[in-house]
C-alpha cells in the first residue's frame, strides 16, 4: 500500500480522489492516456480504452511510462491482468506504418512480418493495398489512405501515419491581437495540434474553440476549408475570423444552400456537402476546388457519416477537429480517431470554469405533477406517444412563466423540441420563436437583437443547440429535448457558459439552467440521464418541486 490518490479498478476505470494532495500531479500524469469519463465533486473516473492508449502512443508515450504512472500513483496493488493488457494494447500501435516511398508513393510498412501478413489477408482491407514490394512493404492506393487507417483500427492494428501532409496553397493569415489575446489553454491547444499534425481539440462550449481554429489557421497560413453544422454558425465563424485575424470579408467565402462562394478561406456546411442529387453528391468537388492546406471540422462529434467517407480521401491534408465532447451518440469515436486524428488537447470543464473563462452554472430540475386527467391519458397512451405527451404537459407553461418572472430582466432562452409546444409558450410569454422554419435572415436579426439586449426572451428549437454565440444569455429553461441526449445537454448548457460582462457590483455572472420535467413519466426518466451527465461534469444539480419554486 502507498498513499496515492488513484485507485485502479479491474474493469479498467481509474478513480482519482481529487481532494488528495497529489491529485493534480496525478491528473496531469494520467491525462495523456486515460479518458476522463466523469468528474463529479469528489472522485473523478477515468477510463483506459484502446483508443486512449493509442492516443498516448501517438503522442510519444510508451507502455512502460503508463504502467509506471499507474504504479506510482496507485493506492493499492494494480491488477496484473490490467498491466498486461496495457502493454499488449500499446504494443499494437505503430507495428504498421504508412510511409512515403520515393518510387511507389504511399506504402504500408511493418517490422513485424506476422502482423503485415495478417493484415494483408484480412477481408476488410481487400482492394486497398497494391503490389507487395518486399517482405515488409506493400504499396497502398493513395486514395485509400483514410479507409485503410480506418480498417486497420478496426482490425486492432492502428497504423502510424508518417506519410506527412501537403502544404497546400499558401495564404497569409495572422491573428490580430489588438485588445485581446489568446488564453493560455487556447495557445496550448493550437500548439499541440500543430505538432501532432492532425487531430482533435476537446474544449467545453464557450471556451473559445473558434479561436483555437483561427490560431491553427495562422500556424498553417494556407488556404483553409472550414466545415460547420449550419449557416448561422458559418456566419459567426466568418464574423469572428474577420474580427480576430488579418483576413478580410472578401477572402472568406460561404458555401451553403444559399450562396456558393469558393475563396481562400471557405466555410461550408455539413448539410450542403451531404446533399444528394440523383444518387451523387454534387458539391463534393468543393473539396478539390482548391489545394487546401488545412481543413477545420467544427463540432466533430456531429460529423455525418458521408463526410467521414470524404474525409478518408483528404488524408494528405492537415485536419483539425473541434468539439466539446468526443462522445458520439452513434458510437463512431474510432472513426474520428483514424480519420481526423487522435485527441490532441483536452481540459476538464470545471478547470476552465475555475480559471474564470467560462461562467459557473446552477442546474435545477423542476418537477411538475400531471393532473389526474392527464395521468390517465398518459397511462393509456401508446409507448411511442408517451414521451411527447409528457414533454408537452400543459403544466409546464405556468412553471416557465414563473421562472421567467423570477429572473425578469436577465436574458433568457426557452429551449424545446416540439414546435407546437414552443408556439404555445411563445404565445403565453409573448416572445419571438426561432425554429427550423424561421428564415435565416430573421434568425440573424433576432439573435442580434438578443445580443444587444433589445429582446430579453427567446423561445428556440433545437436549431439553437449548436454554435450560436449568445454570450449574453444567463438563463436557459429547457422544456423538452431529444430523449435525454447527453450531447444535446452539453450543447444547451454551453449556450450559457460564455462569460458575460460582470454585474454592476463586479460579481461574475452565474448562469441558471432549468429543466422542467413531468413527474413519474418517461420525461423524468430521460431527465435522469441528463442530470447524471451534468453531475458527472461537476455541476451542482438540484431537484425541486414546481410547488416549491
Amino acid at each position: 500500500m502507498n498513499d496515492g490518490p488513484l485507485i485502479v479498478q479491474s474493469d479498467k476505470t481509474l478513480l482519482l480522489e481529487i481532494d488528495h494532495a497529489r491529485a493534480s500531479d496525478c491528473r496531469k500524469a494520467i491525462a495523456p492516456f486515460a479518458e476522463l469519463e466523469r468528474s463529479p465533486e469528489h472522485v473523478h473516473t477515468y477510463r483506459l480504452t484502446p483508443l486512449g492508449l493509442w492516443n498516448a502512443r501517438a503522442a510519444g508515450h510508451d507502455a512502460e511510462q503508463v504502467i509506471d504512472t499507474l504504479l506510482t500513483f496507485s493506492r493499492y496493488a494494480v491488477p496484473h491482468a490490467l498491466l498486461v493488457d496495457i502493454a499488449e494494447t500499446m504494443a499494437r500501435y505503430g507495428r504498421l506504418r504508412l510511409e512515403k516511398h520515393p518510387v511507389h508513393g504511399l506504402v504500408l510498412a511493418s517490422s513485424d512480418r506476422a502482423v503485415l501478413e495478417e493484415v494483408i489477408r484480412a477481408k476488410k482491407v481487400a482492394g486497398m493495398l497494391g503490389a507487395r514490394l518486399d517482405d515488409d512493404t506493400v504499396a497502398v492506393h493513395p486514395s485509400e489512405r483514410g479507409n485503410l487507417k480506418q480498417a486497420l483500427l478496426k482490425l486492432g492494428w492502428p497504423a502510424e501515419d508518417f506519410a506527412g501532409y501537403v502544404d497546400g496553397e499558401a495564404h497569409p493569415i495572422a491573428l490580430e491581437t489588438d485588445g485581446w489575446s489568446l488564453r493560455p489553454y487556447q495557445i496550448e491547444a493550437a500548439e499541440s495540434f500543430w505538432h501532432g499534425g492532425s487531430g482533435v481539440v476537446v474544449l467545453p462550449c464557450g471556451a473559445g474553440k473558434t479561436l483555437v481554429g483561427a490560431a491553427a489557421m495562422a500556424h498553417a497560413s494556407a488556404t483553409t476549408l472550414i466545415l460547420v453544422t449550419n449557416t448561422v454558425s458559418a456566419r459567426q465563424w466568418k464574423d469572428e475570423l474577420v474580427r480576430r485575424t488579418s483576413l478580410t470579408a472578401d477572402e472568406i467565402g460561404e458555401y451553403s444552400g444559399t450562396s456558393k462562394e469558393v475563396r481562400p478561406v471557405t466555410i461550408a456546411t455539413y448539410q450542403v456537402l451531404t446533399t444528394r442529387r440523383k444518387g451523387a453528391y454534387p458539391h463534393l468537388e468543393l473539396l478539390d476546388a482548391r489545394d487546401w492546406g488545412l481543413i477545420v471540422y467544427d463540432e466533430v462529434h456531429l460529423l455525418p457519416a458521408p463526410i467521414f467517407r470524404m474525409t478518408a480521401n483528404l488524408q494528405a491534408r492537415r485536419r483539425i477537429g473541434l468539439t466539446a465532447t468526443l462522445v458520439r451518440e452513434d458510437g463512431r469515436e474510432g472513426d474520428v480517431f483514424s480519420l481526423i486524428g487522435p485527441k490532441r488537447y483536452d481540459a476538464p470543464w470545471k478547470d476552465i470554469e475555475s480559471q474564470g473563462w467560462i461562467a459557473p452554472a446552477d442546474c435545477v430540475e423542476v418537477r411538475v405533477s400531471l393532473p389526474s386527467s392527464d395521468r390517465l391519458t398518459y397511462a393509456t397512451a401508446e409507448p411511442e406517444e408517451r414521451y411527447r405527451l409528457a414533454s408537452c404537459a400543459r403544466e409546464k407553461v405556468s412553471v416557465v412563466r414563473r421562472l421567467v418572472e423570477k429572473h425578469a430582466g436577465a436574458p433568457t432562452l426557452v429551449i424545446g423540441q416540439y414546435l407546437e409546444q414552443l408556439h404555445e409558450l411563445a404565445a403565453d410569454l409573448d416572445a419571438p420563436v426561432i425554429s427550423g422554419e424561421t428564415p435565416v435572415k430573421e434568425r440573424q436579426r433576432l439573435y442580434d437583437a438578443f445580443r444587444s439586449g433589445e429582446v430579453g426572451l427567446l423561445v428556440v428549437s433545437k436549431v439553437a443547440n449548436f454554435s450560436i454565440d449568445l454570450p449574453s444569455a444567463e438563463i436557459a429553461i429547457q422544456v423538452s429535448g431529444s430523449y435525454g441526449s447527453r450531447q444535446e445537454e452539453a450543447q444547451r448548457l454551453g449556450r450559457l457558459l460564455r462569460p458575460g460582462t460582470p454585474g454592476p457590483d463586479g460579481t461574475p455572472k452565474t448562469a441558471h439552467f432549468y429543466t422542467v420535467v413531468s413527474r413519474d413519466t418517461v420525461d423524468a426518466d430521460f431527465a435522469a440521464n441528463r442530470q447524471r451527465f451534468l453531475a458527472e461534469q461537476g455541476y451542482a444539480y438540484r431537484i425541486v418541486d414546481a410547488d416549491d419554486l
Partner: protein
Amino acid sequence: METWYRSLADQLRAWSDEQLARLLAARPDLTTPAPLDSAQLASRAATRSSLLRALDGLDLLSLAVLDALVPDGAPSAEAAVSRVEAGAEAAGAALRRLQELALVWESTAGLRCVSGVADLPRVPQGVSLAAPGDGPPDLVSSPRDAALVDRAAAGAAFEAVRRVELLLDGWGAVPPAVLRSGGLGVRDLKAVAVRLHVDEPGAALLIEVAAAAGLLAAGPDEDGNLAWLPTALYDGWIERPVAERWTVLARAWLATARTPGLVGQRDPAGKGWNALVTELVSSTIAEARRMTLAAMASLPPGEVLAAGTGGPSVLAHLQWLRPRRPQTRSHEIAWTFTESAVLGLTALGGVASYARLLLSGDDVAATDALAGMLPEPVDHILLQADLTAVAPGPLETSLARRLGIAADVESRGGATVYRFTPASVRRAMDLGWSAVELHSFVAAVSRTPVPQPLTYLIDDTARTFGVVRVGLAEAYLRADDEQSLIEVLHHPAAASLGLRRLAPTVLISTTPLAVLLPRLREAGIAPVVEAADGSVHVARPDAQRARAPRRAAEGAGVAREAARVSAVVAAVRAGDKAAASRPPSASAVALDPGGALAELREAIDAGADVVIGYVDNHGVRADRVIRPLSVEGGQLRAYDVRADDERLFAVHRISSVRPA
C-alpha cells in the same frame, strides 16, 4: 564403502533408522502396506512398478549414472563416476542419491543396480545421456523491482479472492445444474465469465480452485436436483480476512491434481471438456506446479523470468530435472505460469515474496505478509451528486452488505463504486427500510455531505412506495350490504376467524375456506362460495448450501506422513529381529509366496543358488536347485541346475526357499 553386502536386504538391515526413513519418505509406495522386514522391503523395492516410479523422480545426471551401472555394475564408486561425462563431484552426489533410493547397492562384487533395473526402459526417446552436465540449465532472467512484483501479485491475489466470493455468492442464490456427466454446463461457465469480468479459462480456474478448496460442491437444490452449491465451509471462509482466504485458495491449487487448463479444450473424441468433470485430473500436475514455482522461486528477489525466453528456459530446466516426465509437461508448465499469475502467486514472471513463504510451507507468515499489502477495510463512502457512492477501499463486511442492498455495484476492484437508482432504493424499502432510515444510513456512512439529488431520490421513491398494497388472505367475504358484513365482524364466533375489514363491503379472513365455511354456517350465516383459489406463495430460502466434501486436513498431512514412515521403520526393524532370532534351519521352512519372493530377490541380487520346494502340475512337491534370474508377473525365471537350462516357475507354487 568398506562393508559389502550379500544382498540388498542385507544392506537395508545394516542401514541406520534415518537412512531407512529417508528411503521410505522418498519412495512412499514402499510403505503401504507396511513391509514385514527388510527382506520384504528389498523385494518390494525391486518390483517393476516401484522401480518405474523411482526412476520417474530421477534427474538426467542420475539416470546417466544409473545407466553406467547397467548391466554388470562397477567395482567402485570412482569407477562408476568416471564412466559418466560430468563433474566427479556432481556425479558422485547423484550416485549417493541412487544408493539412498535403494536403486544401487553395494554387493560383494562392487556397486550394482537392483535387479530389474536393467530390464526397464530407463531413458525416454529423444533424450540423450551422453553429456548430462552437472546440473539443470540456468533460467533466463531479467531484473525487475521485487516490490513491483509484490504489488502486481497482491493485486491479482485480492482479485482472485474477490472473484471467488462473487462466484459463490451468485451460485448460492441461483445454483447451476450439475450435468449428467458430472460437470458444469458451458453456458453456465460463459455466464460466470461475464459476471466476473474474466475470460473463460480464468473462470474455469476460479471454479476448480473453489471446488478444490472445498468451498464448492454438488448438492441438491431446493427442488432436489443436483446443483453446484457453495458448501458450509464457504460460510466460514467468507468471514475470514482476505489474506487468510487467499492462503486457503492458493494451498488448494498447489495440491490439487485437477487440470483447469483443459477446460474448453477438446478431448480425444473431439468433445469439449467441461469444468468440474471428474476426468480432469493428472497425476503429474501437482508436481509440475510445485517444480515450476520452485524453479521460479530459485531466482533471487529482484530477478524475474525474462519475457519471451524465460518460459522455455523453465521447461528446459525441468526437463533436465525430470527427463522421464511425458511431453504434456510443457502444457502443465504453461498452465502454471498463467494460473499462478491469475491467483496472485506470481506476477511479471517472478514469485511474490509472500508466495515464497507459502512455497516454503510457512502459511502463517505468508498470510501475514500478504495482509500487509492488501487494501485495508474502510468504514466510509464518498457520496457524489451523480448518485454514485465510492468506497475508497474494501468495505467492512456488514457495511458492504447494507450498501449493496440500497445501491447497485457499478465497478469493483480495490475500491467499489455504487450507484443509487430508483430501483435500488425501492429494493431497500422492499426489505423494510424506511426513508428516514435510509437518510440516516447514508448520512452516517458518508464522509461527504449528502447531495440534494440523493435526498430527493429517496423521498421521491418513498412517495410512490407502498401506494398499492398487497397481502395474504385465505378467503374473502363480500356483500353489497355493508350492514351484514358489520354483523359478521362483530359476531361472537368471528373472533377466531381472523377477519379484517378492507373496505365497507369487503372482509378478508386468514382462515382457510374449508374451515371458515362450516364455522360461518355454524354461526347462522349462509354464505355462498364465489371462487376457490387458495394458492399460497411460499417464500423460498434465498441461499442454499451443500454438504462439504470430506477431505484430509492440510497441515496434518505432513506430520501424519512422518509418523507413518517412522511406524513402518519400526515395523521393519521388528520383523528383522524376529527373522534373526529364528534358528538357521528355520530358513528352510515353508514360506508364503511373499516371503518366497523376498528370498528369491535376495538370491537374484547375490547371483546365488537356492533350493526351492516346488509343487509340480501333479501336485507333487519336490526340491529343485536353481539360480534365480528375475521375477516378473508372478513367474520366476531361473537357471535350473539339474536340467541345465532356464525354466519358468510359478511363484505361488514355490513352497520354500533356502540357500543351496
